[in-house]
């Protein structure tokens, strides 16, 4: 059942050092010492690589749990409205001009994520039903989106406008150790909640009523999901902006390698998400692009959209 785990760990062990060497300045470990190599490695590339691992792990694990919870292979962690909530927080911090303070943006984003989580819990109520919960998430997502658009349209300066728009595209450029220290513990805690939810997600395979007959408390499961998705996705958005499709694609790629129980999927999806983001971010750094580098969020959407279409077509064939 855990077959993919060693494979993915080996993949990460190979990809991590390679990603440290790749970039605008290539570092040849066997050649002459590159100027400023230590600074580039320790202050730029290592935190960036670790951040890609943390954010990717959070999104991958969240996607696997989300698909298990909604019993739908097309579910994405974005459906709960937590990512848009976090993004709204971040946009507000830039709008208010607090983004210059070192912690304002991630803190605002986390507050936004927490707000979305609290609202979800409040709307979903005591029943713990999945359908109402999903609709509540969609409502929060569209409300956050509308408020974000409002903030953008009313942005006080052209500078804030461009900053908001760029940030929303999602990237790991110019991140520092500070971001690593914010994202890593929160992501780990979130993944912990999702792993604690795994048994309940397995039971949900049989539907909500059968899951309750197996002793699963839907309310507790929902709380674990809100905490787990909120922390992983909230932390990811706080340090990297909106990065779509990872949570959707990764569980799909990993599922055939497992016994298909949601519980067998969470940890491998976290590792695969980490690997995907690490490789994608390195690729963004290397790709020659006039005027800078390809934004990670855009790159993943460019890969993700055709993949999603492929899934839809496959499902349509299955239904026919």
């Amino acid at each position, binding site marked *: 059942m855990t077959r993919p785990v060693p494979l993915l760990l080996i993949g990460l062990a190979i990809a991590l050092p390679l990603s440290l060497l790749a970039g605008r300045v290539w570092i040849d470990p066997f050649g002459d010492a590159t100027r400023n190599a230590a600074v580039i490695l320790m202050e730029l590339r290592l935190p960036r690589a670790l951040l890609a691992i943390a954010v990717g792990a959070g999104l991958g694990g969240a996607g696997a749990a989300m698909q298990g919870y909604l*019993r*739908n292979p097309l579910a994405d962690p974005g459906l709960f409205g937590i990512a848009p909530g976090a993004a709204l927080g971040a946009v507000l911090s830039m709008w208010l001009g607090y983004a210059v303070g070192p912690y304002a943006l991630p803190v605002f984003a986390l507050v936004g994520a927490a707000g979305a989580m609290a609202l979800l819990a409040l709307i979903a109520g005591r029943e713990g039903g999945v359908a109402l919960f999903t609709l509540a998430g969609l409502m929060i997502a569209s409300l956050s989106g509308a408020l974000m658009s409002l903030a953008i349209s009313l942005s006080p300066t052209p500078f804030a406008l461009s900053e908001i728009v760029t940030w929303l595209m999602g990237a790991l450029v110019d991140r520092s150790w500070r971001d690593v220290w914010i994202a890593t513990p929160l992501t780990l805690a979130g993944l912990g909640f999702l792993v604690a939810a795994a*048994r309940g997600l*397995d*039971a*949900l*395979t*049989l*539907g909500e*009523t*059968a899951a*309750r*007959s*197996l*002793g*699963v*408390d839907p309310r507790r499961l929902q709380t674990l999901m809100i905490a787990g998705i909120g922390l992983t996705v909230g932390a990811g958005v706080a340090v990297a902006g909106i990065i779509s499709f990872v949570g959707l694609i990764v569980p799909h790629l990993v599922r055939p390698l497992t*016994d*298909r*129980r*949601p519980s067998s999927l969470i940890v491998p999806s976290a590792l695969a998400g980490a690997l995907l983001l690490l490789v994608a971010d390195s690729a963004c750094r290397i790709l020659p692009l006039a005027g800078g580098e390809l934004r990670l969020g855009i790159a993943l959407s460019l890969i993700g959209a055709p993949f999603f279409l492929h899934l839809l077509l496959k499902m349509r064939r299955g239904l026919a």
Partner: protein
Amino acid sequence: MLSVEDLSLAARLSGVSASLYPGQVTAICGPNGAGKSTLLASLAGLLAPDEGRVALGGEALLAMPSQARAQAIGYLPQTPEVAWDVSVEVLVSLGRIPWAGVPAGEAQDAIDAAIAAMDLDEFRHRPVSRLSGGERARALMARVLATRPRWLLADEPLANLDLGHAAALIARFREQAAAGRGVVLVLHDLANAMNHADRVLVLDRGSLVADGPPREALAEDVIARVWGVRANWLGEEGGLALSHPPC
């Protein structure tokens, strides 16, 4: 003993009282909307009644920890779903969820026994999507058996099964009752209830209108009163068939 005392729930059940015993197959029958599924779900501890209570061995079911309740009562819903295309063995292993922390060897024994009891050995590694309707029904039942519950509750387990598969599944339920478990089935087909249950509860518009051995509870006058159909039982004991003119 699993019992309901003066159970009322919304407009679906009113004042139902009955005590069910292990070692028996009890059938719950009644017209559409009579409250059969509601009663079964209440017996499984999945619905909170407005009045009255459900008790397992004298203890209020809803006051029990959900894990202990899930260990004691296995429940198969009316429209069982399997969201992911897992293998039969993985599906059956989900029945062990209430027993978190039990040694893996014991869990595997229970899974193997459930697979054997439902004649699924050759399908063990087959994905659920590639099972026939009858095999799937047996796999879902094996999932309930893997819990090793004292009570087996199933909501119309024979729906959509052809005669052969239905007969095979009934035989399995009888085996479970003979092994000392309490078996409670919602059955639509009155002939199955008549021929294979030890006891029948008949519900009509939320009230218990007959309770006893099948011969009494499903007597022709009860059928006329509850279902509004003048029908006759034909044939011999154990193989009775219900004959009725078109209404």
